[in-house]
């Protein structure tokens, strides 16, 4: 009964199983390869990369919260040159797809980064529009439908690979954002990025993060993520990569039943470095135990 099919397809790219990792929680796979056989993941999603190196935010950058954490890494990254030279060749040694997460401070920076990736041997681009738009005074691209649609279109035009737009959950209507990026030509959607949160140390009377606010992730936000995946799946036709608090196969299956084609394991990697493969294994077991021949039969099955 191991003849179950776990393959899914995102914008024409076939993943051997519906499990990848959430950008920023897995580096470029190098460090985690000591704990996880990368060949067993549908894809590896890399930490956000920009045209130039970014130094990120001052520390403390992370803080624990109930069943979750806050981070304000500030998208530290070594820039596209180092990324292309070091990280892509490393990942290509494995039989897994490569999803490159892209960030920028302005629309032009996004487009430039996407263009630099055109000749790279990577499979999918995930455009993180939760970065602060420096030109527009720090608002995030991902909260204004028109802006999101425009940046999607520009990335789409510049890209050789399919473009997945990664949405922020800090919006009144995720369906509206999903429709905006679909209208902009997105080949897929990934959600959710982190919910904006804050923690204060009452003893020292200071913010727990130097940046004051940070992104909330982990199991705490899973119910919000499932709801948003469900709403987005009912608003658009393009495939969805679901994420937010996935720690077990059950969590992943919830997302898939809600409408995600594949899922990303993020913060859970910090508690269990092998969480991603455990999720992949657990999904296969569920298919076997429930006599479900094809994972695709589960996508959006709970209506």
């Amino acid at each position, binding site marked *: 009964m191991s003849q179950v099919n776990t393959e899914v397809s995102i914008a024409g790219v076939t993943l051997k199983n519906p499990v990848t990792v959430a950008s920023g929680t897995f580096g470029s796979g*190098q460090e985690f390869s000591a704990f996880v056989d990368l060949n067993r993941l549908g894809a590896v999603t890399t930490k956000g990369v920009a045209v130039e*190196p970014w130094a990120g935010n001052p520390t403390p950058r992370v803080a*624990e919260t109930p069943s979750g954490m806050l981070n304000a890494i500030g998208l*530290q990254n070594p820039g596209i040159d180092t990324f292309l030279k070091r990280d892509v060749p490393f990942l290509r040694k494995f039989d897994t797809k490569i999803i490159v997460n892209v960030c920028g401070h302005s629309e032009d920076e996004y487009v430039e980064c996407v263009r630099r990736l055109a000749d790279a041997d990577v499979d999918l681009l995930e455009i993180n529009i939760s970065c602060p738009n420096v030109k527009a005074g720090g608002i995030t691209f991902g909260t204004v439908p028109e802006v999101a649609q425009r940046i999607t279109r520009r990335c789409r035009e510049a890209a050789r690979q399919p473009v997945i737009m990664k949405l922020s959950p800090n919006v009144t209507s995720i369906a509206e954002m999903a429709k905006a990026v679909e209208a902009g030509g997105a080949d897929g959607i990934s959600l959710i990025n982190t919910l904006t949160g804050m923690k204060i140390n009452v003893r020292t009377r200071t913010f727990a993060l130097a940046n004051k606010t940070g992104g909330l992730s982990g199991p705490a936000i899973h119910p919000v993520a499932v709801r948003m995946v469900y709403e987005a799946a009912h608003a658009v036709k393009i495939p969805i990569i679901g994420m937010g608090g996935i720690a077990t196969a059950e969590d992943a299956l919830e997302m898939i039943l809600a409408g995600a084609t594949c899922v990303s394991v993020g913060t859970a*990697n910090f*508690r269990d470095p092998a969480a991603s493969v455990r999720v992949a294994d657990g999904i296969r077991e569920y298919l076997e135990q429930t006599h479900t021949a094809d994972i695709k039969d589960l996508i959006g099955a709970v209506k």
Partner: protein
Amino acid sequence: MALQTRVKITKTADLGEGIFELVFSCPVMAESARPGQFVNVYCDDASRMLPRPISICELPGDGQIRLVYRVVGAGTKELAGKHPGDGITVLGPLGNGYPFEGKRAVLLGGGVGIPPLLELEKQIGIPAAAFLGYRSDKTFLLDDFRKYGAVYVSSDDGSIGVKGTVITALERAVSDGFSLEGAVLYACGPGPMLKGVKAFTENNGLTAYISLEERMACGIGACLGCVCKTMEVNGHSGVKNARVCKDGPVFDAREVDLS
């Protein structure tokens, strides 16, 4: 190579004043562990997602690893509730550890920065002096250190040893004739103390290896949560940042920007 595993606790002890010790058995981890490295300790309580990094205090042999820690919050409180025979989930050894330079070693430890220096002193082989700074006369690990070399004690409130920090004690010793010639400093302790050590070595043309602390999420170099500022662009990060968990926690004091 580091691994995450559930291990059995073989010994626990309350060292007083909120300081606890915990020994667990993990031969494969103990075999590759070096002084200055740490382990990630995971909470059983599912509401606490992030690991607690705790330095390896001693490798007592027989595949054992000894940790000495202060209870400061919910995670270390959970840990302090454990008993011999209980399990804990750990990952390690992590980080780079202290480099051995074949020179006289002067150890400087403040508070819970003291524990990681014990295994270092055991292994470093060259008669060394340990400067240990406590809050008060509620000391811990003092007898352990006394087995391996001279010990200079200081305390914040002056209730034992020199009143002040380990730097005060070191300066006092130097002015009393203690020689730093050909010596390398190894330090671990709170931020202000490490700044003091950096300044001291710069002023005296010495080398110091200091162990930094930072909030961590992964502990294995992937999340970029735990960086410290570096004087030069770091090879891995491409910026003036190094990862405390992976590139450290031990750094040559000259390489890091503690300002």
